[in-house]
Each structure stands twice: as structure tokens, then as C-alpha cells.
């Protein structure tokens, strides 16, 4: 961490000396543009590259910064450098206002988010054009004094853009390695799962958007003086968003330095090929280079590098002797009997299908509760409600005496509830180890990154996946994915563990292993709700059974009495025909 920041600062310091060498002024302007685009592309990537919310609205925030500086410097005679924080603030507020609306609507993701932000750009542009902010003719900044940092105006611009570029790269790197960055990458792969594992998705998206917009705003403020004449049609166009997307994808959006590499490449290429006598031929060459690079390097220039870097982080191989249940971390043992989770009158309907029709049940501390019932009886819906994946229509869910029925999923995870998904939903672009470290960071345990990584290794050992630490989910078979799902739920150190058909699709031998694992988990203090169709395992593991049918509880009690209950027999086997 320190090394990279030091390297960025050092490189920045070295580049700051360039004007002293006596470069022709022209090159300083060119270098200004390089850093201008580095700032814009890198700031865009902090939200869009990391979290996968591709914004086409970067021009709006860039433009907000431009116009803030233009208006303040020309009409209120505020010194240029003091307008830059204001530019950042205006852009940030605009972004936060947009995010507060857009991020609340769950379906506005992917293309729809791209479109909403693009449309927002044109709306902002139209308002600026038609109000006294601009009014039509544009704003000229020719009378505004350029701060004398270098020997000429061009040097000053270059030095300012360089400083901003260095700052932006350090911020991008800090976010990349932080908890925020980890959360954003999880949102990129599967936002719903990230939320259920404890990532405060709304807050993280807002934070990333705010940082991204503020940086774009400063870049805009600086550029306003550089171009010295600001117009709506040049500012709020498709050029800025399109360019930053191109640069970031070219460099690689999954790496903090990717957009900077892409920005330098594209600005340099455009200059090299379009300056001089053969501008038109140069443009063609530019197009061809872009196409060829993307066809042969689909993950961007740094794409290969990110994949290799992740695989590089080899850890010493754990020997088989260590791969035993003894690896299980100790959890506080709790007295059994008192209720941990109490559901009262829980209802949930999906467009007229009443999935849960007033469920009352109790999960007692320290027990394994088997939740069974025919297909469509509401077992998975119940798990989805308790984990906060869906919100219930009515009823209360008291977990340790607090109602969690209306809470956000990430708060439920933090309160100590973890779940597995029936069909494993690993984060596809994260290594197995990172997949498991994430809930350790965001769940009830709330560890920092490096303890979370060692915690992950312990749970990998516990589930027998130690040899797969650096593998990616696509390399795993079904059995390993199921165990990855289990390890991910365990790593958050839940007090209540919801297992949704962890055994389906496994071979009899694998089921035996899993049954031993689940028993070991319970013996160490976790309470387990166990949804399963494999009756052998249900009978072997459950302390008590609850049977659901058509969204209501039809029987509850110890295993043998429940299985002999006439309603249960009817629900599973049908009515006797005589």
C-alpha cells in the first residue's frame, strides 16, 4: 500500500520537473490534456469500473464543475483556485441528488443506469443553456487570471492537472484496496448477494458516486480556464462519457491504474496520429488500433495483469492433516432452549400467489431446526425473508428480541444471520479466498481485510477447499461450489445460519461429509435452520422439525412425532384412497 502511494508521488514529483527542462510550450499543453483525461477516466472508474454501474453521465458532473468555475470566476471575481473546491462541491451534490433517486430503484442497473445518467446529462445541459447560468452564448473566461505556478500559463495548467492526477490516482488506489473497494467489486458481480452478505450497497454506491463526481467537478473547473470559453454544446455532449468509457475499458476497468493507462494511450494515439499533415489517415489508424487492441485484449491492457496478480498471491499449501474439523474456530457456546428467532404471522405474496400465509414458528438457540415441506410450500421464501432478500408483507420476525422484518439485508447480516443459496451464487470475478473473506469483513464478525483473509483460509480448510484458495468459482465443480457457499456463510460467524438445500445434487458420500460438517458447526454454538429434501440427512441432523405446506405451518415438534402426523403424511404422499 505505502509503496504504491510513494511510487505515485515520486512519479508525480519527477513529472513536475519537466517544465524546468524547457519543453516546448506545446508539449505542456499536450501533457495537460493527458492528465485531464487521466483524472476524468480514473474518477469515472471509481464508481463505474469497480461497481459495474456504467455511467454515461460523467459529462454532467464535469460540466457542473466547468460552469461553477466559469460563473464564480467571471461574475463574482472569485480567484480561480478558490473556485475549484466549489466546483467539486456542486458536482458532488448533483451526483448525490441523482444517486439518491436512481440507486433506490432496484431495476435501474446496467443499460438502464447508463441511459438514465446519459439523459440526466442532457437535462442538466438544457437547464444550463436556458437559464442565466449560460443563457445561450457561452461564458468567456479570458479575463480570469491564471495562477502563476510555472514559467507560463501552459506550465501552470500542466502542474495543476498533474497534481490533480496524482491525487486522483492515490484516491483510486486507496478505494481499490479498501473495504469500500471490496464491497464495490462484490456489487459488480452480484449486488443482491453482496447486500445479503452485509455490504451496505446503497451507501457504498453513493460514496463511490460522490468521490467520482467531485473529482470530475475539479477537472471541469480546471478545464474551464484551460479552454477559456465554455459552451453547453461542447460541455454536455456525448464526447466526455464516451471517451472515459473507451479509455477505461481499453486500460482495464478492474484495475485502479487501468483508466489512466487507457487515457494516456488514447490521448497519445490521437495526438500522434491526428497531428501533422496526415490527420485523416491518422484517424483511420486510431480506429484500427482501437479495434485490434480490444479484439486481442478484451479485458483491457491491464486485464491480464489483474488476473495474474490475483493468482500470484499463493499461500503455503495446507497439509491434509490440518484439513480437519479441528480447524473450526471456537464460538461462544450458548444455552439451548430460549428462542433465538420468533416468527409471528409472517406473510408474503408474489402477484397473487400467497407464498407464506401467516407463518408462526420459533427457532431455539443452539438447535438444528429442520424446515421441510413439498415443493412450493414456502421454505425458500421463509429463508429469503429472514435474510432480508425479500421484505415480508406482514408479521414480525424477532431475532434476539429485535424485529428484523423491515430491516435492510446488510443490517440483518451484521446482526448475525447468514444464509446459503440453493443454487450457489459466488462472486464470479473473485478468487475463492476473496469470496469467503468478504462476509468475514462485512458480516457479524466485521474483520479488517488481512484477518478476514486468514479467517477465510480457516473456513476453506474446514470445508476441505484449501487447495482451491486461488481458484475462481468457474473452476469449481458443483460439490465444491456448494461448500464454497457454506464456507461463505460460516465466515461471517453467524449466530443463526440458514441452509437452503445445501445437500441437493451431492453424492451419498458427499452428503455424509456434509452432515458431519453441519453437526460440527452446531456443536460450536451456531443455531441452524436447515431446509432440505434429503430425508436421510434431515432425520439424522434435526433436533426439531417444522413442516410447511401452502405457506402455513402444518406440524411442529420432535422428529418422530412430526413424521407420523397425519397432515404431514398427506402433504407428502397424498390422501389414502380408501
Amino acid at each position, binding site marked *: 500500500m505505502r509503496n504504491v502511494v510513494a511510487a505515485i508521488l515520486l512519479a508525480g514529483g519527477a513529472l513536475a520537473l519537466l517544465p524546468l527542462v524547457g519543453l516546448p510550450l506545446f508539449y505542456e499543453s499536450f501533457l495537460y490534456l493527458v492528465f485531464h483525461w487521466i483524472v476524468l477516466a480514473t474518477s469515472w472508474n471509481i464508481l463505474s469500473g469497480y461497481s459495474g454501474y456504467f455511467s454515461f453521465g460523467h459529462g454532467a458532473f464535469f460540466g457542473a464543475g466547468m460552469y461553477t468555475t466559469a460563473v464564480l470566476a467571471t461574475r463574482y471575481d472569485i480567484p480561480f483556485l478558490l473556485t475549484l473546491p466549489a466546483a467539486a462541491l456542486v458536482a458532488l451534490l448533483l451526483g448525490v441528488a441523482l444517486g439518491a433517486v436512481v440507486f433506490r430503484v432496484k431495476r435501474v442497473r446496467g443499460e438502464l443506469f447508463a441511459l438514465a445518467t446519459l439523459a440526466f446529462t442532457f437535462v442538466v445541459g438544457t437547464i444550463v443553456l436556458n437559464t442565466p447560468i449560460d443563457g445561450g452564448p457561452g461564458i468567456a473566461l479570458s479575463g480570469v487570471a491564471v495562477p502563476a505556478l510555472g514559467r507560463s500559463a501552459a506550465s501552470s495548467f500542466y502542474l495543476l492537472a498533474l497534481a490533480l492526477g496524482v491525487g486522483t490516482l492515490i484516491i483510486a488506489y486507496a478505494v481499490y484496496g479498501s473495504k469500500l473497494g471490496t464491497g464495490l467489486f462484490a456489487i459488480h458481480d452480484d449486488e443482491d448477494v453482496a447486500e445479503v452478505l452485509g455490504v451496505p450497497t446503497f451507501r457504498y454506491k453513493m460514496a463511490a458516486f460522490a468521490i467520482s463526481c467531485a473529482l470530475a467537478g475539479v477537472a471541469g473547473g480546471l478545464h474551464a480556464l484551460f479552454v477559456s470559453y465554455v459552451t453547453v454544446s461542447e460541455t454536455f455532449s456525448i464526447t466526455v462519457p464516451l471517451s472515459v468509457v473507451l479509455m477505461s475499458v481499453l486500460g482495464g476497468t478492474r484495475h485502479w491504474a487501468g483508466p489512466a493507462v487507457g487515457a494516456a494511450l488514447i490521448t497519445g494515439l490521437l495526438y500522434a496520429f491526428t497531428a501533422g499533415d496526415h490527420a485523416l489517415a491518422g484517424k483511420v489508424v486510431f480506429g*484500427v488500433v482501437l479495434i485490434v487492441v480490444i479484439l486481442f485484449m478484451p479485458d483491457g491492457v491491464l486485464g491480464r495483469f489483474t488476473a495474474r496478480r490475483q493468482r500470484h498471491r499463493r499461500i503455503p499449501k495446507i497439509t491434509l492433516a490440518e484439513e480437519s474439523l479441528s480447524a473450526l474456530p471456537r464460538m461462544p457456546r450458548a444455552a439451548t432452549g430460549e428462542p433465538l428467532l420468533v416468527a409471528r404471522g409472517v406473510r408474503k405474496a408474489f402477484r397473487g400467489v400467497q407464498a407464506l400465509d401467516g407463518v408462526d414458528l420459533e427457532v431455539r438457540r443452539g438447535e438444528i431446526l429442520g424446515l421441510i415441506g413439498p415443493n412450493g410450500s414456502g421454505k425458500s421464501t421463509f429463508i429469503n425473508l429472514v435474510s432480508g432478500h425479500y421484505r415480508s408483507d406482514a408479521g414480525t420476525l424477532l431475532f434476539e428480541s429485535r424485529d428484523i422484518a423491515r430491516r435492510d439485508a446488510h443490517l440483518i447480516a451484521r446482526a448475525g444471520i447468514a444464509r446459503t443459496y440453493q443454487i450457489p451464487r459466488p462472486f464470479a470475478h473473485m478468487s475463492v479466498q476473496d469470496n469467503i473473506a468478504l462476509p468475514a469483513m462485512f458480516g457479524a464478525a466485521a474483520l479488517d481485510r488481512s484477518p478476514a483473509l486468514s479467517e477465510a483460509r480457516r473456513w476453506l480448510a474446514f470445508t476441505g477447499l484449501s487447495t482451491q484458495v486461488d481458484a475462481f468459482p468457474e473452476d469449481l465443480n458443483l460439490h465444491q461450489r456448494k461448500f464454497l457457499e457454506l464456507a461463505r456463510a460460516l465466515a461471517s460467524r453467524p449466530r443463526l445460519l440458514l441452509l437452503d438445500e445445501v445437500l441437493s445434487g451431492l453424492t451419498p458420500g458427499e452428503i455424509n461429509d456434509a452432515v458431519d460438517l453441519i453437526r460440527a458447526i452446531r456443536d460450536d454454538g451456531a443455531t441452524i435452520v436447515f431446509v432440505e429434501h434429503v430425508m436421510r440427512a434431515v432425520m439424522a441432523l434435526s433436533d426439531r422439525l417444522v413442516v410447511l405446506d401452502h405457506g402455513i405451518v402444518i406440524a411442529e415438534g420432535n422428529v418422530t412425532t412430526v413424521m407420523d402426523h397425519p397432515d404431514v403424511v398427506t402433504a407428502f404422499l397424498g390422501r389414502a384412497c380408501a
Partner: protein
Amino acid sequence: MPSVALLSQSVLSGVFLGALYGLLGLGLSLSWGLLRQINLAHFALAFLGAYLCYQLSAKGGMNPLATLAVIVPAFFVLGAAMQWVFARFRVSAFNSLLVTFGLTVIIESVIQGIWTADFRRLDSVYGDAKFKIGILYVPVPELITLGLSLALAFAIWAILRYTDMGRALRATAEDGPIAAAFGVNQKALGLLLAGTCAALAGVAGVCIALSYTLAPAQIYAWIGVVFATVMLGGLGRALGPIVAGIVIGVSESLTMAITSPAWAPLVSFSLLILVLLLRPGKI
């Protein structure tokens, strides 16, 4: 408040403008929804078509509509060739944006190299031809655009809905591997569809040449509003873009008539944002 005549005239011109948005959006929507490609080059192709139409009719003496006989097959081959490359390299949706941007830059340069950066205007037999119905003036070139848009949208809608090929296309869009397992030849369908989309760009180009002044930089002028049309109309749908295009076109020209032309984008894009936020599932 403007007069009834002015308002109804602007509704009509909004419908005509919207028809062109819809025609441009149609090809874009099909390749985005069914091939998962965001084809920026669609706009460049349309302008290439427009310039070809200009060349063939202004210099070659052909009837502008007759140039379709040359442009449509040529563009079909071009589109299919592009798709062959995309399929060969398995280009992802966002990378397709980059590749087609590169292509756009190349086409723009080629256009500029051949026809220069100056404005070009096609003086055709249709030119300023118009007739009057009641209080409304109906310009002929725009009417041709509207007719072509509606005819093509309905034809493609019918193909997608009622033919086996259309069903196979929709199935492939929903789940490619499964569709392939049931015997759908993805590769051939992809070539066919991409060819069709490029041909649609060619038709849109002829329509642009009939009504608008041409310049290479104009390629980028249409992107924002046509993207909005495509999203509003729904990806991979045939009738959606036309309807959405007309909604946007009419709202734009009404705003121009009631307030000032500069406010026009506000209405259409606010409308779009509202639809996105309130009914995201319907898009």
C-alpha cells in the same frame, strides 16, 4: 399560446422526426437486444448510406429511392461481415461499444476523405415537394421516411412474432446455449440479423439524405436521442422504437413550438428518466 394550426403542424413534424428516430433505433435495438451488441457504428453506417445515396443520385442521376437497390444489399453484406468478426472474437457487449466506436472513427474519416467536411445537400426530385391537407403541410421526403419506418417495423415485428426464424431469434436472445441445444443455428442467425440491421442503417441513411444536410460530424449528433428512443422502446423489439421515437419526436417539437427550441431536450429526456424510475420493468 401558439395557434391550433401551428400546434398541429408541430405534432405532424414531431411524428416525422420521430419516425426517423425510430428507423435509426430499430436496427440499434435489434442488434442490442438480440445480439447483445451496442453498435455505435450504426450511426456511421447510416451516414455512409446517406452519402452513397447523395453520390448516386446527385452525381449519378439515379432516383434517390432507387439507390436503395444498391445500398441495401451492399450494407447487408457489410453488416454480416462485421458480425463474422464479432462472433469470431466473442466480443462482449461493452467491448462492442469500443470496437464499433473505432469503426465509426474509420467510417467518418473515409466519408471526410471522399466528400470533405463541407455540408452536402441532396437536391432531388422530392426536394421541397409538399402538399396540403386541410391546414397541414405535408413534406414528401418526410412522408416517405414515415412510410418506410412503419412498413419495416411492422414487417420485422411480424417476422419475429410469427415465423420460425423469428422464434429462433428470440429464443437465442433469451438463452443462447439452450436454443443451440434445440437445433438453432446461432451463427447463421447472427449473420442474417446483423446484415439486416446494417441494411436498416442504409435505409435510414437514404431517409436522412432526403431531408437533411449532410456533414461527417453529424454522425455524433443523433446518438443521444436515438439511444433514448431505443431504451424507451425496449431492446430487441420491433415496434417499440417507432412508438418511442414518435413520442420523443412529438414531445420535442411541441416544446419547440410552445417555449423555445432550446428547451426541447428537457422534455424528452425528463420523460425518459421518469419512465425509467417509475416503470423500470416496462422498458
